[in-house]
């Protein structure tokens, strides 16, 4: 939904603009809006297309099996191995991200958990963990709180504070979404177990807000774009505001391959990208903010190596691409007597944070949250929702299989566990030495192996989730296998934030230690993983970085 009649700016590549933002997603959209409203000229280069809300479809096959709005492993191949000493293989793993204007904020589930105070100071609270890069953030929850509030109020978030939440300066702008059947079962059972359920805060409108419609409960949140604009994606919220300034151009189908540096001054001077026709263009700029996600941001820096930066741009620490974190994810499922119809409305409506904090008494580091959520879309449920979960003795075809689908689809819910991942230097994004993408650029290679504590945390939370489903009276309840991670949508930690240039890539204002007019802001800035719902913190960081970058620009400090 564009602001009608807004004179969206148009720049030529040879025009010298104040800022190029690479990526228009959860962070990039906010940075663009903050800088354009502060009076700067901004070009946002987005590799994907621009879709308007009327173009989003309820098409599971296209969106989940045909890469409808996500990166395409055929044109943008990736290679994976668990450890750096193994040969990385194509198709063995996958880092997935939304590839369109609005990025991940368009297709995410819209879970909108703030971090807790502990997330920023965990290493000093629990002590270091040998063999890991476990560290405190250079900023605290108090530093970020005003920006959490700003995000919730500018974008539109529905919720009520829970008993474990960190202090907030302002209530949520909107009441929580209506409870679902899964939420009722989960809430009653977890209370009986002495736990403290709360409504899930969601970046989805429970009431009309900011000229946008409320949610219509169609059920197509996770993985889909909202045809009503009720999900608070940057596409519907801050991007139209940025464009309405007349100083911001969103340029879709623009795939960036290199940030150019003046070898003498060490400053970023331009951004080279392929346009829709795969013709190379060079946008001149006074500064660059990369918001391309925790996979593509480090890849772009590594692709931008030069005489001055032989190991990759802004990589004097050697940490660009390192400390990749996913968040652990595992589930327990339950099928009940009566109808849940979880395929209606938002993905999740109740959660617990009782096990959020790590506890040394458990014998391992880690914590997380559990939410009560839907059982998947029809194809996904028929393919794996039943067979992957109910065990090897359950039918996968035939009359009994059909009966199982028929009886269980509208009566099943999951309790999903979202957990910590420790930062390990060997878990990393790098460039594949041989494989190229369709633009002739080095393919993304990644290595990842869960820390034993990450797996222990997942199993610990999963046992709690299973106990809740059993207490809720599930006719059948089960725990899905917890296996090593090879697939992720939360892409975190690969250009970590810190005060010391030897042990971090960006400073506390998201400026790279090495290049004065180069900033990075997205999941790559994370020092620790949080508990599985990173978007809220990515967006708070983006508001904070945007405000500071505008101040630096005003003071001539860029």
């Amino acid at each position, binding site marked *: 939904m564009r602001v009608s009649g807004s004179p969206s700016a148009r720049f030529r590549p040879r025009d010298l603009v104040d800022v190029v933002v690479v990526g228009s997603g959860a962070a990039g959209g906010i940075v663009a809006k903050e800088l354009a409203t502060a009076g700067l000229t901004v070009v946002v280069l987005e590799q994907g297309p621009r879709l308007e809300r009327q173009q989003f479809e*309820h*098409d*599971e*096959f*296209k969106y*989940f*099996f*045909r*890469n409808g709005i996500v990166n*395409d*492993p*055929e*044109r943008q191949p990736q290679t994976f191995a668990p450890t750096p000493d193994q040969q990385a293989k194509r198709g063995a*793993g996958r880092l*997935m991200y939304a590839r369109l204007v609005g990025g991940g904020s368009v297709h995410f589930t819209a879970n909108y958990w703030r971090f807790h105070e502990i997330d920023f100071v965990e290493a000093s609270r629990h002590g270091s963990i040998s063999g890991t890069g476990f560290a405190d953030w250079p900023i605290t929850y108090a530093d970020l709180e005003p920006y959490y509030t700003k995000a919730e109020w500018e974008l539109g978030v529905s919720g009520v504070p829970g008993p474990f939440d960190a202090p907030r300066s302002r209530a949520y702008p909107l009441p929580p979404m*209506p*409870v*679902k*059947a899964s939420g*009722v079962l989960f809430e009653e059972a977890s209370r009986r177990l002495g736990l403290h359920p709360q409504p899930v805060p969601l970046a989805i409108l429970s009431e009309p807000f900011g000229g946008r419609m409320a949610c*219509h*409960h*169609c059920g197509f949140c*996770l*993985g889909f774009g909202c*045809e009503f604009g009720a999900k608070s994606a940057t596409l519907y919220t801050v991007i139209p505001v940025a464009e309405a300034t007349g100083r911001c151009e969103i340029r879709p189908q623009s795939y960036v391959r290199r940030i150019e540096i003046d070898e003498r001054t060490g400053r970023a001077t331009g951004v080279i990208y392929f346009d829709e026709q795969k013709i190379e263009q060079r946008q001149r700029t006074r500064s660059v903010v990369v918001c391309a996600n925790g996979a593509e941001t480090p890849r772009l820096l590594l692709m931008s190596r030069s005489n001055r930066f032989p190991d990759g741009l802004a990589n004097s620490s050697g940490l660009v691409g390192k400390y990749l974190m996913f968040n652990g*994810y595992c*589930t327990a*499922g339950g099928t009940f007597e*009566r*109808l849940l*119809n979880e*395929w*209606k*409305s938002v993905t999740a409506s109740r959660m617990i944070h009782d096990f959020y904090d790590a506890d040394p008494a458990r014998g391992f580091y880690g914590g997380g949250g559990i939410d009560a959520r839907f059982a*998947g879309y*029809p*194809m*996904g449920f028929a*393919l*794996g*929702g039943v067979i*992957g*979960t109910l065990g090897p003795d359950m039918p*996968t*075809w*035939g*009359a009994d*299989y*059909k009966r199982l*689908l*028929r009886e269980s*689809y*509208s009566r099943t819910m*999951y309790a*999903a566990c979202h957990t910590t991942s420790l930062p390990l230097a060997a878990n990393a994004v790098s460039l594949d030495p041989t494989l190229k993408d369709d633009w002739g650029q080095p393919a993304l290679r990644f290595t990842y192996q869960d820390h034993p504590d990450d797996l222990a945390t997942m199993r610990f939370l999963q046992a709690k989730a299973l106990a809740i489903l059993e207490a809720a009276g599930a006719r059948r309840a089960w725990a899905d*296998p917890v*296996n090593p991670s*090879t*697939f992720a949508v939360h892409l975190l930690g690969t250009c970590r934030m810190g005060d010391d240039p030897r042990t971090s890539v960006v400073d506390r204002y998201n400026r790279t230690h090495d290049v004065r007019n180069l900033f990075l802001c997205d999941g790559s800035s994370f020092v620790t993983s949080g508990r599985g719902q990173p978007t809220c913190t990515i967006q708070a960081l983006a508001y904070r970085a945007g405000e500071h970058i505008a101040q630096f620009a005003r003071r001539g400090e860029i």
Partner: protein
Amino acid sequence: MLEDVMHRRAFVLASCGAFASAWLATDPGKLGASLAHAARVRAGRGAQAWEFFTVDQAADVDAISAQILPTDDLPGAREAGVAQFLDHSLSTWAQGQRDDFTSGLDDLNRRVGDRWPGVGRFATLSSERQIELLRVVEQTPFFQMMRFATIAGTFANPSWGGNRDKAGWRILGFEDRFFWEPPFGDYDADVTGSGK
């Protein structure tokens, strides 16, 4: 793509649990279920004119899919039009998978001949014998491809040429609408007090 899907399904399922199994994506954006074809299928066109399959192959595919999701008091894969969905897919965006399906069908029919000489093709077997043979091959890539195709052809959006008259969604009790109101299920209705 279908075999590829099964490989990816295995690792995604293994790594991320049930929900993420839906997050497996297959090969490229050669998007394009021809909507015209889908409309033709929906409209019905009397004697089936197959785009890719021979009449015999189509009958086998139809029979296999009908064993994977049989018809009972509700429609199954046959009524959903899985054979037409697969035929059209192999003629358009899944052309690269043609050999996998034809060689898989050939292999299956060789097994039919070995087991029951002189009987003919899979489609002409009794239902009991069809099930017996499919149990033997259920771990093969071909059967897994057929299972995926059956699920896609039954439960994907009808715009892809299957799920005719939303037959698949009726099995699940699922309805694709843009608009629902609470209460959504029985348990939340109990609490909010309003009837469904």
